[in-house]
């Protein structure tokens, strides 16, 4: 059982405010992922929750109790550091049992808990080794084991996979998901890797410059981004943004005209007068070559990834509209193409960057 509640949390280093008022509710057993560009304050926020960094103002509650003044060990949390921060002079078993030793847990029980954690993480053969004699992935598992042994209410992860190679990262990601399932603990996870965020999270928190941009399930963020920042941040390759102006607003949606004069109807609503300048967001995966498409352009670059191909198309006054198509396409550089867009996957943003609400919610997003 662990719920967290952040009330207007702020952090200032001297005059510089790095967390500018964060409100967030985290439910029991939820897997929450903080994402955001480098320097946006993800680690700082996590460290404030951990108790490693004092909270300048606002209130942090765990299970409804204010914990601002409690030390890191008394909050019932465990943290996995990006650098692993294993104790180099202790064996794997001693590393994992250190917290229990400090808590004066009897040696026999300590040993039992360490073995149990080692079993879960398949670390049993390495219990007597020093961290320097382990591979990166094994060290990572020891760091996780050190957290598990304490049976914390909440697990905190700060970019735990960023030091691993791609294959191992995928594998460990699955292991963390399994662990979340098995332990039934609340987890807060910081990453800048989209795939980790999309696959692991129950709830993604997108941060920018110390503020929350949007909170929601992965698919909610993907299909209904609240603003241009989230739309650009979630999804890879990035969403294409084109300047458009409103032609008319009807019950069927908003019809906009593209720079070339072509017209598109987007199923969004909003109080927009004809002539208003908006931004149209098109995901690369919602565009497709189509002889009857509204957008005419020329292929400038072809990136063949095998299963997929990315086309960089010069169209609508832009040179780099990215289109994601299947890998067997014969389209080549300097080919003229016409592009059609899946109307349901179009987004409109006003001058302030806020999304105009969609007429219908996506079926996968409750």
């Amino acid at each position: 059982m662990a719920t967290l509640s952040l009330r207007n949390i702020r952090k200032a280093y001297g005059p510089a405010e790095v967390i500018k008022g964060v409100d967030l509710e985290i439910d029991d057993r939820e897997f929450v992922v903080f994402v955001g560009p480098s320097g946006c304050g993800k680690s700082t926020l996590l460290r404030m929750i951990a108790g490693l960094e004092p909270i300048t103002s606002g209130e942090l509650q765990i299970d409804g109790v204010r914990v601002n003044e409690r030390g890191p060990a008394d909050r019932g949390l465990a943290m996995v550091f990006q650098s692993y921060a294993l104790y180099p002079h202790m064996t794997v078993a001693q590393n994992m049992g250190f917290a229990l030793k400090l808590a004066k847990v009897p040696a026999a029980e300590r040993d039992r808990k360490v073995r149990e954690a080692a079993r879960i993480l398949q670390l049993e053969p390495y219990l007597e080794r020093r961290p320097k004699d382990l591979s990166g992935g094994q060290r990572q598992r020891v760091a996780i084991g050190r957290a598990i042994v304490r049976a914390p209410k909440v697990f905190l992860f700060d970019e735990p996979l960023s030091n691993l190679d791609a294959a191992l990262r995928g594998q460990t990601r699955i292991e963390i998901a399994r662990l979340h399932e098995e332990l039934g603990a609340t987890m807060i996870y910081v990453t800048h890797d989209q795939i980790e965020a999309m696959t692991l999270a129950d709830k993604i928190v997108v941060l920018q410059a110390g503020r929350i941009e949007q909170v929601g399930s992965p698919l909610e963020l993907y299909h209904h981004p609240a603003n241009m920042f989230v739309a650009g941040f979630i999804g890879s390759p990035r969403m294409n943004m084109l300047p458009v102006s409103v032609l008319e607003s009807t019950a069927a949606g908003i019809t906009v005209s593209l720079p070339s004069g072509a017209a598109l109807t987007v199923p969004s609503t909003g109080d927009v007068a004809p002539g208003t300048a908006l931004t149209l967001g098109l995901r690369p995966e919602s565009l497709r070559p189509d002889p009857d498409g509204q957008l005419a352009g020329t292929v400038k670059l072809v990136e063949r990834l095998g299963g997929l191909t990315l086309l960089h198309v010069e169209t609508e006054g832009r040179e780099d509209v990215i289109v994601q198509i299947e890998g067997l396409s014969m389209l080549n550089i300097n080919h003229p193409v016409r592009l059609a867009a899946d109307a349901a996957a179009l987004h409109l943003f006003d001058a302030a960057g806020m999304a105009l609400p969609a007429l219908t919610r996506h079926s996968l997003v409750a």
Partner: protein
Amino acid sequence: MQAGTANSTLIHGAGGTPPGGHAAPTSHKQTTGWLVMPSVGVLLVWMIVPLAMTLWFAFQRYNMIDPTIRGFAGLSNFQDMVTDPDFWASLKNTLLLLGSVLVITVCLGTLLAVLFNQSFPGRNIARVLAISPFFIMPTVAALVWKNLLLHPIYGVVGVLAQKFGFTPIDFFAQFPLASVIAVVSWEWLPFALLILLTAVQSLDTDQLEAARMDGAGPVAQFFFITLPHLSRAISVVIMIETIFLLGVFAEILVTTNGGPGNASTNLAYLIYSRALLQFDVGAASAGGVVAIVLANIVAFFLVRTVARRLET
């Protein structure tokens, strides 16, 4: 110790050829082995000549007051030495001085290093002040302590004692060895501090934070994280200090002259007094031989433990 190292290099270089040495790598080894011979030779001569002379004189009757008494002395120099109470006292003093200074500098140095790693106003100035004694020559340092600090009448401590109504103590007369230990510790504390401070600074702060999350308070952090991290640096400090502390001389000469009696005479001072105050080169050389043996014993244990630490 040094003779031993050179010898083993020599043996290795020459003996690198196995009996049927026709394999290419071994012949290569043989050629390179000879290439290091000139430097090994120079080092060997550099050490062997004084060593051989010391050994030679140790077995000679050789007193500069009466040059007519010459000839082979057998073991009589050593016999005189082991029956001489001064010798045993000096041996004890040497080890006491070494041990005390090591304990004081390492303990205080570790504490100061941890302290100077925290940020507080004026830290940089405090660091410079703490390190400055290292730049003062031993003779000057000893004079400062003898005349400016601990002198019962003119010294700061004496003046303060008088001011508060205590009888000033003549430290160098009443606690000669302890006073010498204080002077030498004062000189070597900066060295320990300097080495240990850089080691403390290299400690990964994530480890300390992980320990905090694990429930370690400041004391537990110090003993479980910081101290193990420092162990390597501490062994280096111990080894280097030992090499220099076995031969402390100037401080004793300036402050106590080894006295009163033999209360602050160490082996180095004893050799000096035998050779240049009593002009008994034979006895001094016998003391020198003992000093070499002692240094080798200490070095043997130190090098072994330090090498083991540096491995991990």
